């Protein structure tokens, strides 16, 4: 890639990042431009990847070679598009039926095995190995089993939650709160990581190699907001007068 294109790329990346961040101060046309460009570019990228990586090698090339069987799944896939034409939208049911049946057949046994049976086994299994476990591991396993039972009671609605059952389900709430707390803490860390990533790029684009893209665009945005505030103030005064 030539040096000029790298600089243009840097200006584009820095500009779009600053335009999107500018929403934190106030909604503005630059944010709208970046927002729409993001959606358009994303869809464009997905379209070209789908055409070059899927449509050409999986449909066009086999059909050109005389492998006509691929036409059947292709037609089923295309049938989904009839959703957009109400009169013939019933045709899409054939495609959806296949997808539903195929998806359910794969997902239900795997889900039951992975998220249900294996988790029950994982909760109970340590109690068969108590003799070989350290006191801390025993405590850990007991805590997990206790927590799982309490949370399950909290989500069991066929019995009124009162008396001992209420106490158990209340303990379940505390376990859930601990999970939500951990999830929230991690979410904060993740958001900061993403922000750090953008700032790191902005710092990279602020170098002489990129002709100080970040500084110029940031200054431009500040000038825009100052001018906008000035004109907005004047028009308000004019209305009052």
């Amino acid at each position, binding site marked *: 890639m030539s040096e000029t294109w790298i600089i243009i790329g840097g200006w584009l990346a820095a500009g779009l990042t600053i335009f999107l961040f500018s929403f934190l101060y106030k909604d503005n046309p630059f944010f709208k431009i970046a927002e729409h460009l993001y959606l358009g570019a994303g869809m464009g990228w997905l379209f070209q990847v789908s055409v070059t990586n899927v449509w050409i090698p999986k449909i066009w090339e086999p059909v050109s070679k005389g492998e006509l069987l691929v036409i059947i799944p292709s037609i089923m896939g295309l049938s989904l598009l009839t959703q957009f034409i109400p009169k013939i939208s019933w045709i899409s049911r054939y495609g959806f039926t296949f997808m539903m049946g195929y*998806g359910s057949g794969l997902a239900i046994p795997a889900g039951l*095995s*992975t998220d249900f049976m294996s988790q029950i086994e994982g909760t109970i299994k340590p109690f068969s190995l108590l003799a070989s476990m350290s006191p801390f591991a025993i405590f850990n396993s007991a805590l997990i089993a206790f927590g799982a039972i309490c949370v399950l009671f909290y989500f069991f609605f066929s019995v009124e939650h009162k008396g001992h059952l209420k106490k158990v389900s209340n303990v379940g709430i505390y376990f859930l709160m601990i999970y939500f707390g951990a999830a929230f803490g*991690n979410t904060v860390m*993740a958001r900061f*990581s993403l*922000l*750090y990533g953008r*700032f790191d790029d902005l710092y990279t684009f602020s170098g002489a190699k990129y002709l100080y893209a970040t500084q110029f665009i940031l200054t431009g945005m500040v000038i825009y907001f100052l001018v906008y505030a000035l004109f907005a103030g004047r028009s308000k005064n004019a209305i009052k007068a």
Partner: protein
Amino acid sequence: MLKEQLQKFSRIDRRWIFLLLAITLLVPIIKPIGLPNKTIAEATSRVYGNIEKLPAGSFVLFSLDYDPSTRPELHPMATALVRHAFSRNLRVGVVTYIAGSTGLIEELFARVSKEYNKSDGKDYVILPYMPNILAVMTQMSSDLYGIYTKDRNGIDVRGMPVMKGVKNYKDMSLIVCVTGTAILDYWVAFVGDKYSVPVAGGVTAISQPGYGPYLQTNQLKGLIGGMKGAAEYESLIKQPGKGTSGIDALNLAHLLVLALILTSNIILLIIKYL
């Protein structure tokens, strides 16, 4: 008087907090402080251990399913993992089920393969993006060439030295999925559990707590979580990268959040009880 001032302070324009946060994150980028990253999670060590114990020449499949939206967290992680695999002379295969990840994968391998003098087709192969992940995973269990006949450049993969003796999951020593989506769940449920293939993962910090049950039951052989996890892995392979440099900023930002939470709670208590 104090109460009124505090009430006024508690109604501060939140854009000041945004500015404070921006400064807190930007300062360590401009001038790194070098705060240490002393803790290494057991789940991260397990991923490292699983790659470390593989004999040279083993085939590891990387499912790199992230796009630019999660790049700061997951790209350093994937980079560290690929560096580790190359340093151990493992054969690397790459698949992706996210269309936006193809550019990032190209960038990663263009950079890291040069560091270890690895060549495309001989030491690693990048397979093209495929939609319908479940169909692909199912097909790969019997014959991966039924779905992947060519690499992302249109070259036939059957004749590549990197694919020698690799036909399905049984020929793979480890699968590592780096993703900001639920694709790791699919690898665990539809491949790891079903075909007894070791699966490890790298995920965003947001998703990390949800994978605890899989780690406890050993359905997941290890997990790297967020930028912190990336920094941990970089420490383990002794190659500091973007994950490690981000720790300064993360630590300072977390301290700022703690300070803000404490300050706002103290202010609220004073307003309520004084």
